[in-house]
Each structure stands twice: as C-alpha cells, then as structure tokens.
C-alpha cells in the first residue's frame, strides 16, 4: 500500500525541481518503468503465462495430482514398452494352455504364464500389457475426436453468436437430453456392424455437446473481458481476436474436462463391449473388451478374467480423475493467492 502513494507523489517533486540532475531524472524514469512493467505483469496474470505457472505450482503441491500423474505416466510407459514387458505374443494360443481348456476350466497361473490363460488359451498377462495400448488408443482417440468437434462447434457458437449460436446450442440440448450410454448405443446401432471405430466414434460423439457447451460458455465470458475489448480497440482482426485472444484463454476448462473424459471414455467403451456392441475383433486386446466380453461371460469359470482388466481400468480411470480434479482445483481462481 505504501508504494502507490510514493508513486502518486512522484510527479509533483519532479515538476517543482525542473532543473534536477540527469542522474536523478534517470532514477525516476527507471522507477516508473519498473512500475509499469509490474503493472503489465499483474494485468497479464489472469490468463497469461503466470496463471499456468501459478496453477502448476499448486498442482505440484497436491498429493492427489502427483498420484494421478504417476498412474498416468506408468500407464503410458507400459503402453509404449508393451513389447518389452509382455512375456509372450498376446495373440498366440499356447498348447500348454489350450490343452487345459474345458467348458468348466480355464488354466490358472503356471510356469511361464504368471497370470494363467484367457478364454482362448492365450497368455493373460501379455494381453493385459498389450491391452494398455488399445485402451489408451481408444480413450485418447475418442476424447480427441469429441474434443475437436466440440471445440469447433463451441468456438463458432461462442464467437459468432446470434442465430448460429442458437441452432448449435439447441442441437447440443437435444444430444444432452439423451442419457450418455443410450446415445452411444443409438450411435453404434446406426452402423451396420460394430467395429473398433464405431465404438470410438460413439464415445466421441457423446462427449461433443459437453465440450461444445463448455467452450461456448468460456468464450462468451472472454468476449466481455477487457483484453478482448483492448484488442478490438487496437483494430485486431475479428478472426485473430477469436483465434489468438479468446480461444487460448477459453481452452483451460476444456482441457480439464478432457482429462476427466478420458476415464469416462474407457469405462463407456467397456460398457459397450458388455452390451455386445463393442469391438468384435477377438485378437485385439483391449481392457474394456476383455472385461465386458469374456470377463463377465466366464465369471463363474475363472473370475480373474474379469478381475485383472477391471482392476486395470479402475486404476487408470482413477488416475485420470485424480489428475483432472486436481487440475480443475489448481486452475480455479478461487484457490489463487
């Protein structure tokens, strides 16, 4: 509180001592410059780099965020190094395992197969390890596609406004009026037969209205903000106001939502598999399909077929949720100090 008073008082002595020494004048202008820089920095803060730095600092101190980040990192590492980690080919059927397959028995752990066999005599551990790849693929792709379409629609609605905004938002209303899984089921049912892509697209489209609404909301808030007004006053083109000034600032909420969506997407893909609308390719190892298809079908025979992929899904979903929630908390201006 003391600094502004000296600052406000500063011009007065300067005008009275018009003939002050050069050194003194320099010092004064230096101070002014420093003060201006400071001011510029403080106004840049809500939305500039320092917000992210600030949020990141808070994120680093939050144990939930660290646990979430570690889980996500491990998940990604396993997916990348799957061929090195997995003891066997995930598709190959082993005689040692198929020999023991009967309607009432699926082989448990044995030498060389630490988690035993799956329903077709393949190594369960290797399928779980490779499953991280497909699960990551489905989750990330579904989220990215949903995010991209949602962001485009939301940005158009938020930037253009008017009747276009109205139409786009009514469409999202209609989509949001349907329960998520039901919408996904309807979308899958539209394809003549289900495949990995129908699953990805269905899960993606379910999330489109959420992203679109979210982005539109924060774009509208941006439109009223001072820095956009300043940009407009400076004569910045509408296109670049939207793309350079509004969109980057409005994206934070969307990115947080995307992290949370990743866990939902993985679970939704599993649910579709459970309903018989999942990826029909039985060679492909994906946790959701492993759990929703064979896992529950052979639950009485060998529940581990469900337990392991379920555990993997729960842990990974937990990781994304923890990290996403922590991010939301860190970015929330209420928590800024």
């Amino acid at each position, binding site marked *: 509180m003391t600094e502004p008073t000296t600052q406000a008082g500063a011009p007065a002595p300067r005008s009275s001592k018009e003939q002050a020494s050069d050194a003194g004048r320099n010092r004064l202008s230096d101070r002014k410059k420093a003060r201006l820089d400071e001011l510029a920095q403080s106004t840049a803060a809500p939305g500039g780099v320092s917000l992210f730095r600030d949020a990141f600092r808070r994120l680093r101190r939050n144990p939930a965020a660290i646990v979430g980040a570690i889980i996500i990192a491990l998940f990604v590492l396993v997916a990348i190094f799957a061929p090195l980690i997995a003891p066997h080919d995930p598709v190959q059927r082993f005689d040692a395992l198929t020999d023991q397959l009967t309607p009432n028995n699926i082989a448990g752990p044995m030498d060389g197969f630490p988690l035993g066999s799956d329903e077709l005599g393949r190594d369960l551990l290797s399928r779980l390890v490779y499953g991280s790849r497909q699960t990551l693929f489905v989750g990330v792709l579904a989220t990215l596609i949903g995010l991209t379409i949602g962001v485009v629609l939301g940005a158009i609605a938020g930037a253009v406004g008017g009747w276009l905004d109205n139409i786009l938002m009514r469409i999202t209303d*209609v989509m949001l*009026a349907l329960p998520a899984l*039901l919408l996904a*089921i*309807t979308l899958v049912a539209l394809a003549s037969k289900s495949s990995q892509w129908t699953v990805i697209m269905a899960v993606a489209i379910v999330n489109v209205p959420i992203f679109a609404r979210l982005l539109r909301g924060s774009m509208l808030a941006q439109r009223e903000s001072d820095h956009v007004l300043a940009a407009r006053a400076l004569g910045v083109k509408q296109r670049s106001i939207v793309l350079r000034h509004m969109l980057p600032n409005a994206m934070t909420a969307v990115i947080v939502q995307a992290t949370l969506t990743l866990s939902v997407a993985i679970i939704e893909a599993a649910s579709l598999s459970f*309903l018989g609308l999942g990826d029909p390719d039985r060679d492909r190892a994906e946790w*959701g399909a492993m759990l929703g298809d064979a896992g529950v079908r052979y639950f009485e025979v060998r529940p581990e077929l469900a337990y392991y992929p379920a555990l993997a899904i*729960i842990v990974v979903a937990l990781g994304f949720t923890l990290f996403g929630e922590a991010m939301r908390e860190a970015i929330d201006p209420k928590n800024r100090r």
Partner: protein
Amino acid sequence: MLRVIVRRLLQLVVTLIALSALIFVWLRNLPGGPVDALLGERATPETRALLTKALGYDQPILVQYGKFMQRILTGDFGNSIRTGDPVTEVISRAFPATVELALTAMLIAVGLGVPLGYLAARWRGRLLDHLTVVGTLLGVSIPIFFLGYLLKDVFTQNIHWFPPSGRVSIGLDNTNITGFFVLDSLLTREFDATADALWHLILPAFTLATIPLAVIVRMTRASVLDVLNEDYVRTAEAKGLRQRTVRGRHILRNALLPVVTTIGLQTGALLSGAVLTEKVYNWGGLGTLITDSITGSRDYPILQALILLSALVFVVVNLVVDLSYAFIDPRVRVR
C-alpha cells in the same frame, strides 16, 4: 412463474420434435435397416421389395415422417418388428420394472448420499471424510456392470443373502396390477410377495445407485463446505441459535440447493446405468428391452419409442427439479 413454466414446456416440445426427426432419419437411412434385419442377407430382391412396401418404407421420407408423427401423437408407435406386439404394450410392460429399480436406487443415493456428504464436510479431514472421498472416487471409476457381477458373486454365491436375478422368485403367485411389484403386493396385502420383491430389488438397486451416490456425496460435501464459511452461518451462531437450528435451517437448507440440481441431472446416469444393471441381474425392464432390440436384429419401432421416452423422462424430471427450486429457494421466486 407461469411464464417460466410455459417457456420451458415449449422448449421441451421443440426438443422432442427435433429428437424425433433426428432419430427417424437416422434409423431409417442406415445400413442394417429393418428390412435386412427381418429377412437376413440372403433374401431375394422380390421379397425385400414386398416387405419394404408392406412396412411403408418405399414412400418419400417426409411422408413417412408425417405419418410417423401422426401416429405418435395418437399414441401409436407401431408394432415391434421382432414379436409383432404393439410397441406401447411392450414398453408399458417393461416401464414399471425400470421405474421401480431407478426410484429405489435414487432413494438409496439420496438417503445415504446427503447425510454422508454432510457429515464428511462437518468432520473435514477426519477419517470419515477421507473414506468418503476415496469411496466417491472409486464409485465413479468402477464400471458398474463389473460391480454388479462382483456384488452378485459375493452376496448370492458365497453368502446366500440375496437372490441372484429376476424380480420375483419363480413360482411365487403375486397379483399384478400396476407392474410395480412392491406396490402391488402391498395393495393386495400379499406381504410375502412384498418381502420377496424387495429382496430381489436390493442388490440391483445398490448397483445402480453407485454413481448417483458418489456424485451426490461429493456435491453435498463441497456445497456444505462452501456454506459453512458464509457470514450468515457465523451470524446465526453468534446470535446464540441452537445448533440444530443453525444446521438444519441455515446450513443444510442452503447447501442442498445445488444438490437438488444434481439429483435431476443424475436421472440420465440412472437410465444409462439401468441398461447395464438390468442386463447383469436379468431384470426385464426398459434396459433389457433396449439391449434386446439392438443385439441381433434391430427393432427400430421399439428403439425409436424408447429413445423418445427416455429423453422425455430426463427433460421432464429436470423441469420438475428446476420448478421445485421456487419452493426451496425464495430468491428464485422473486425473479
């Protein structure tokens, strides 16, 4: 108030019309349509054409849609392609089962969720708080159909507390009036049937309640924490009001506002969850109907009606929730 209601009702009608048009066009123009579904891939072009004509699919799409809407408005959704029964009949047979399940699940979620969330907030940082936070995180991370199988395994195979599936025991002679088995048996005073129906209801309802429960607990906790710091709570305490009055009238009443909205939004989660839960427990409600009309042959008339119905339920429930705001929160009434 009346204006708000009218506007919301109009919005509802517009939403439903848009949805019906969307679904109509979607379901009709895509591969694997009803004709293929009925005849299989090896049907001759002649039979195909005959059936297309019989089902009215040879007419212009706008004419078809007009007829479709005309029939819908008179309550006729056509016949199921698979069984030939009228859609309205098929759906009204399954509807009470799902409503019974979903209502029970919601009762569990609200009945457990609000007190748990409130206590967690009041004892912030203590053991119960930590447990609820971990529990809610797990609740939204677990695929509920897996939880269903897990519960079923533990409570029906290992310890025989509950029946594994279905709505009533086989061979039980219960009178069916409304289709709500618990209600029916109470009305007819067949109390053994009430007990039996409740017995079958508990596990599926708990399974279905997981996600709404987790969300409601979190919402209540966060909301109570917000309110606890409000000036009016401090004022109420400073005035020397009894603790019960402060908690009931000042904290809970204000904290529950956002929770009520959440409850409305959870209807969607309930309908989604019902599809999965009903399959796990062989429940025979709308969820089972949806699964049945999609796997194998696609039963479009049933799908159309079901999608419209669930959208209607979701929108109406949320409308009711919004309107009920006025009764809980006088501030809304003033506006």
